[in-house]
């Protein structure tokens, strides 16, 4: 089993889990916060939502770069 890839995967997974969990909890327990428009007249719900999608792709790319191809031969 490729333990290095697994470890990197778990760390990135936990990072995203925090971000997603924050979004869901904020929606559930403080829906009012989501209506605030702190930036460019766009509310938190949309900024955070689109951010979650963008960050997912960025983390996926980071993972792709960190897992070196040579390790797959182990």
């Amino acid at each position, binding site marked *: 089993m490729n333990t290095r890839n697994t470890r990197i995967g778990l760390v990135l997974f936990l990072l995203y889990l925090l971000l997603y969990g924050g979004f869901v909890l904020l929606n559930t327990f403080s829906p009012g916060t989501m209506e605030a428009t702190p930036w*460019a007249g766009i509310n938190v719900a*949309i900024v955070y939502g689109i951010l979650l999608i963008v960050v997912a792709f960025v983390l996926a790319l980071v993972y792709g770069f960190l897992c070196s191809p040579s390790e797959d031969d182990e």
Partner: protein
Amino acid sequence: MIYSPSHSAVIIFCLFVGVTLGLSFYLGKRAKSSAGYFAAHGQIPWFVNGVAFAGDYLSAASFLGICGMIAFHGYDGFLYSIGFLAGWIVALFVVAEPMKRLGKFTFADALNSTFDSRGIKLAAGVSTLAVSVFYLIPQMVGAGVLVQPLLGLPHWAGVLIVGAVVITIVVTAGMVSTTWVQFLKGSLLVIFSAVLTMMILHRGFDVQQEVLNPVTVTKTAAGETLINGLQLGNGPGETLLPPVGHVSKLPGGLSKTGPLGPLEFLSTLEKSEVVLWNSKKTIAEDGSVTITYTPKPTPGSEVLRPGQHPKFRGIRSDQFADKLNFLSLMLALFCGTASLPHILIRYYTVKDEAAARKSTIVGIGCIGFFYVLTLYMGLGAMTSGAMDVTNSNMAAPLLARSMGEWMFAIISAIAFTTVLGTVSGLILASAGAVAHDLVDSFSSTPLTDHQQVRIAKIASVVVGSIAIVLGILFQKLNVGYLVGWAFSVAASANLPALVMLLFWKRTTRQGLIAAIVVGMTSSLAWILLSADTYSQVYGLPAKDALVPFSQPGIVTIPLGFITLIVVSLLTNRNRESVSEI
């Protein structure tokens, strides 16, 4: 609403079907063996597989359901987009590489890699079938919804056409043709959604001052449809349903914005006012059912905040159970993706773990991009002046119609292909479960390669036929909502087994079987006893439901994990635990 068939749409659609079927028969030669039929010999290039992931995953629910939900209720539909995408993080970081390493053709293979147990094969095979059939219902409903404006045919005809085309694709060349159909569909869907979004931004908003009258739609006991008391139809003395959906006020009293940037689009809407439509159903003594749609000018700031849709209103409630329902859904979406059998089998079509990883990254890129676009398409539809109040699933195609007849033709045809791609993946996953897991676990001698493929083809026809029947029965439900259920069942039944097998060395054979069985039955039972099913499927009062909230995930996913741990600890002395994987 009555739709007149669009000839260009029919031509484009027939072209798509012709190309896919031609491709399928051509590729059929390459899929004679079981390795070819179930896994395309593991020869699919990673980039193609990544786009095919998008084609497999972005179902009618994503395209029609989410756009419709955003168009009718604002932001809430986007919550599904976010949850659907977040699930891919679990797929990439936790599941992708072990799946490829451990399995061969099906989800059960990976679970069973260390135990070689008939029980695991049986349990995982049944759960694959259950999840796939659940997921098939909304896809088939979507097909029926699309065929009405496209070909001017009734709902059942659409379901039947899609069913027949998909069965042909799957029977002729299995995973090989399925992959290429999904690749084609994934590319077209993402590209044309981007084009449509650019057209929305270019059009911007314009204010229409209409007299806002409620619309009533009555289904009489005799089966006639009346709109505001008049017969539905094109003839004299008859009337059509008026198209709706517009901006009633723009910031600064403007009447037209002209082209907008992607951020400007959202910030302008935030300060505008949009007319949304509420519906109310009344049943008269003579058995006629009247639905009254009332226009309600709504500030943009409310349209763009969570909690407008009836299903999500719970987050603004003081009741904790209502909030739990939302948490439960978001958990199921997060955990569900990596447990969907038709997604998991796509890991077997590439050559190694690195390719599995790379194709998932490509998939996340395509799918994430598309989901950002759903927000624009939904909001664009909301303000397009072309909506049908009675049918939220039609929002995306009608938005395209407001852009022009050709765009409508292309988008409808792509939506149809969308259904084809996802349904063929689901039917293939079910057929694999039947031939490779279920029949194999019952027969005393291992099946030959040739027998497995033959059984898989028969199973494809049977599952396809079941899907056709269910698609006709459930035609009234919003397709996006139904998919939430499929995710709950998948996450509850499959995820605990998969994750614990990978990360807990003391997992036993019995633990895995128990977790799948308990997760699957508890989530199914919960859904069948929930308020939503009571009101929408059985037609009973929602308050009679036996469970406190509708989404099972938050209870049944942990239940699966606990079952696995307890049963594994109890059976651990048999020394059957995973020693090394």
